């Protein structure tokens, strides 16, 4: 018989009130496939990352010290064009800097913009802004056109 009582809270198996980031990205990935009739697909990945804190690095001696790098988890949304030999590009990075989902940094390598996000509503708005940006739309349309052309060549 245990000699101590259970000190763990009872809600450990419950769902977090925030929508899990990767689940949100997975859903958006599925929407992209649907919106392009599966000509493009998107996949998501979660990796550890080490990201330079550029503004804090003042001289060379500090470059390799841990305090100048932010360690965390990055969730990536990558767009893939199967008809183009799985050509891919990374559309969105969500940099999660602690075990908590928020705050996080959202970065779009395509638009070269970064946002600080504190909750799911803001994240949804920011992702919508990135997806609807003219450059994103034109790039996606361009990839769809190139993919269709490749498919026609193969036929």
């Amino acid at each position: 018989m245990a000699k101590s009582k259970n000190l763990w809270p009872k809600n450990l198996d419950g769902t977090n009130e925030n929508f899990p980031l990767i689940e949100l990205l997975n859903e958006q990935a599925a929407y992209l496939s649907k919106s392009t009739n599966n000509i493009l697909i998107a996949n998501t990945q979660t990796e550890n990352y080490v990201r330079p804190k550029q503004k804090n690095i003042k001289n060379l001696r500090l470059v390799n010290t841990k305090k100048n790098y932010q360690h965390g988890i990055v969730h990536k949304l990558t767009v893939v064009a199967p008809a183009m030999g799985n050509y891919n590009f990374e559309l969105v990075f969500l940099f999660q800097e602690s075990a908590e989902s928020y705050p996080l940094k959202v970065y779009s390598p395509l638009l070269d913009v970064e946002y600080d996000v504190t909750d799911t509503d803001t994240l949804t708005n920011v992702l919508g802004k990135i997806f609807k940006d003219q450059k994103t739309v034109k790039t996606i349309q361009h990839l769809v056109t190139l993919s269709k052309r490749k498919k026609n060549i193969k036929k």
Partner: protein
Amino acid sequence: MIKHHQPNILVLAEIGNSPAEIVKAISSGEFQFNYNEDPICEKIFIFSQYADEWLPLVTSTLRFTVRAVQVPNYLAFNLLGIHYQSKMHWNFVDQAAYTVVANNIIEKFESQQQNQNTLLIGDFNMNPFEPGMIQATGFHGVLNKSVAIKKKRRIDGKDYPFFYNPMWSFFGDFGKGPVSGTYYKSYARPVNYFWNIYDQVLIRPSLIKYFNENDLQIISNFGEDLNLLKKSGLINKNISDHLPISCTIKEIEDGKK
């Protein structure tokens, strides 16, 4: 350039004309070029004598483009064309810090392509000796083959593969070729290198035996047709502020170009 160097693949940055105009200008007779378009990359433009099927896109960002070159008789390799962030906006520490990102991308596409036959070429905006070009978490370039052929080194439990950077061989008056760099700048600053080798080619050790060392050059003229240098020996910036570089890969079979 086309007449004198007869490139199969031309990697250009900062083009002043449209790709269509360039294709028209460089194609004639036996040299027919395609524009191998990248829908994402805004800084690098690839023109080649091959259709996209021979060098399909693998991945890209705004500043670099990666293609899987699969030309008959040549070892299949990954070609990364890059125009890295300029020193006008980023100092060398910023540049070095960000090479971590490039390193991750290289690791990812090599894993995807299931080979490390990778050649990097372009304007790195860093000299071969700068931290970003050297550091294991960056481009990890080493200056001699005897180190490079060890393929990798281990730091803190993680293996980091080498690149061989042959561009070191061009430094100084006793270096290879008639010029000491691809970019010349005279700043009124305490530290100034004058000649810089920002335009570089780096290869993984697996490509060393296919790399034709004698053909690697910093181009300073197109024969008698055009001198890219002024009479003073400095770069004629009315033509281009950087000098181009060229390299060749040997055929698998007979070791010729």
